[in-house]
């Protein structure tokens, strides 16, 4: 049950670009708070699972399969959302293409692919929604990114760069759209898993390192996501918040 201050009743959301697990959890949280939710990504079983979660909350769900991230396609996605829902209040950019390889072995094609998968959709979807959000004088853009936007991890140069790009998109776009009632924020995560991690030596090394001695679960960003999507966060913009089990705080 969501308290009145955070209610998303009558609002519509688009969760864009996720082909992993974010849409399932984020969709459930937004629908539970009262929003109708559209999902745009490569068509996978997980989108149907997400749609099920939305319908369980008696909210409208809309799956828009999207294979390629380019302006034409993304404008088509937005057209469909506006057609079905009549408005767009909340955009969640959820692309998370994880890629790791020793720096010298990364090909130009791979580098471009990582940027195309992580950075490009955040740009294209944001550009698509800002116009209708400006007309409404209200909007919420929430970018789901990684702690690797700010910190380096070995073999993750391409991924870190793409996520750092989304972080800067958050900061810079916020300045252009704040006066139109549109907020732009990012939620950063690290060490998230749907299933409990135990077992092999590599996992043990990671678990020992983490301050909470466990991975985070995808639904642990839910309440922050709803807060940032709600009307009550209207003065909160341009920020980058970590739901990270304190991993950014320790040495």
């Amino acid at each position, binding site marked *: 049950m969501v308290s009145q201050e955070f209610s998303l009743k009558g609002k519509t959301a688009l969760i864009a670009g996720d082909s992993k697990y974010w849409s399932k959890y984020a969709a459930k949280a937004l629908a539970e708070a009262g929003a109708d939710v559209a999902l745009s990504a490569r068509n996978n079983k997980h989108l149907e699972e997400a749609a099920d979660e939305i319908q369980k909350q008696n909210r409208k769900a809309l799956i828009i399969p999207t294979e390629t991230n380019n302006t034409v396609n993304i404008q088509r996605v937005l057209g469909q959302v506006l057609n079905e829902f009549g408005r767009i209040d909340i955009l969640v950019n959820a692309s998370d293409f994880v890629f790791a390889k020793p720096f010298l072995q990364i090909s130009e094609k791979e580098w471009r692919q990582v940027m195309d998968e992580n950075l490009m959709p955040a740009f294209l979807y944001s550009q698509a929604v800002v116009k209708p959000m400006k007309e409404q004088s209200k909007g919420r853009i929430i970018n789901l990114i990684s702690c690797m936007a700010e910190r380096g991890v*070995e073999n993750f140069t391409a991924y870190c760069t793409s996520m750092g790009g989304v972080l800067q998109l958050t900061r810079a776009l916020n300045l252009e759209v704040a006066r139109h009632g549109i907020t732009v924020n990012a939620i950063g995560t690290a*060490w998230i898993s749907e299933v409990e991690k135990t077992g092999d030596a590599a996992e043990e090394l990671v678990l020992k390192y983490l301050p909470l001695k466990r991975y985070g679960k995808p639904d642990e960003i839910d309440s922050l996501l709803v807060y940032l999507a709600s009307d009550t966060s209207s003065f909160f913009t341009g920020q980058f918040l970590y739901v990270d089990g*304190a991993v950014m705080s320790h040495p």
Partner: protein
Amino acid sequence: MNEKGTLEGKVAVITGGGTGLGKASALVLAKEGVSVVIAARRVNAIEQTASEINALGRKALAIPADVTDSQQVNKLIEETVSKLGSVDILVNNAGIVRGQVPKPLWEITDEEWRLGIDTNLSSVFYCSRAVMKYFVNQGHGKIINIASGNGMRGFRGDYMYGTAKAGVINLTRILATTFAQNNIQVNCIAPGFVDVRQLQPVPVTSSATRTANLIPVQRFGEPNDIAHLVLFLASEASGYITGGLFPNDGGGLAGGIAPTGYAPIIEKGVN
């Protein structure tokens, strides 16, 4: 690194200059022609540093002072100016990790808290306050604060030191903006793990090895790693730099979200 003579004849006060980073900074500045005042409580240590500098044919003065006592700090700066004619550079290096024996939070006394904050933070305020009127009058001055990576991250149980060092980082910015128009530059260095035992090789204990492994360059810092940055920030080469935070940490702060050695290969991408 300087144009010849840039620092020749300048006067620097270095707190905690008897050992470690302070001593290394004193020696490096002295070699560049700076007259150096070394101020700390341990008389033997500062006299030792002073005599090493004198042996180089440079001027050095050892003035015993407890930098947590603002009257002693004021006297230190007055004595510096009366004996050496001016003060141009202040290196706020004094600080302790002493008294940081890990203990439960509820067992830390008010006195221990105050001692930690006074030594690491109030001392920087007292010394900066004492030199600032001279800096403003002469129309130039350099303050270099030695903070710590501990002021940027939460080390377990590191209450006084970590809190005070975070304060030093922001005091740097406040002094820098307040006195920017007076041609006074205030900057801050955040050393990582520095071995202060005067360039002795780090003993191969398992804990030292573990710590070195955490550092991307795979070694501890040496006092001169910091001292050469002090020199840069004391010189005219850094004349347009103020309010800066300079981590000098072998790359440690760039990482810190994955354990050392974690370097997977994920080729086909996961999306």
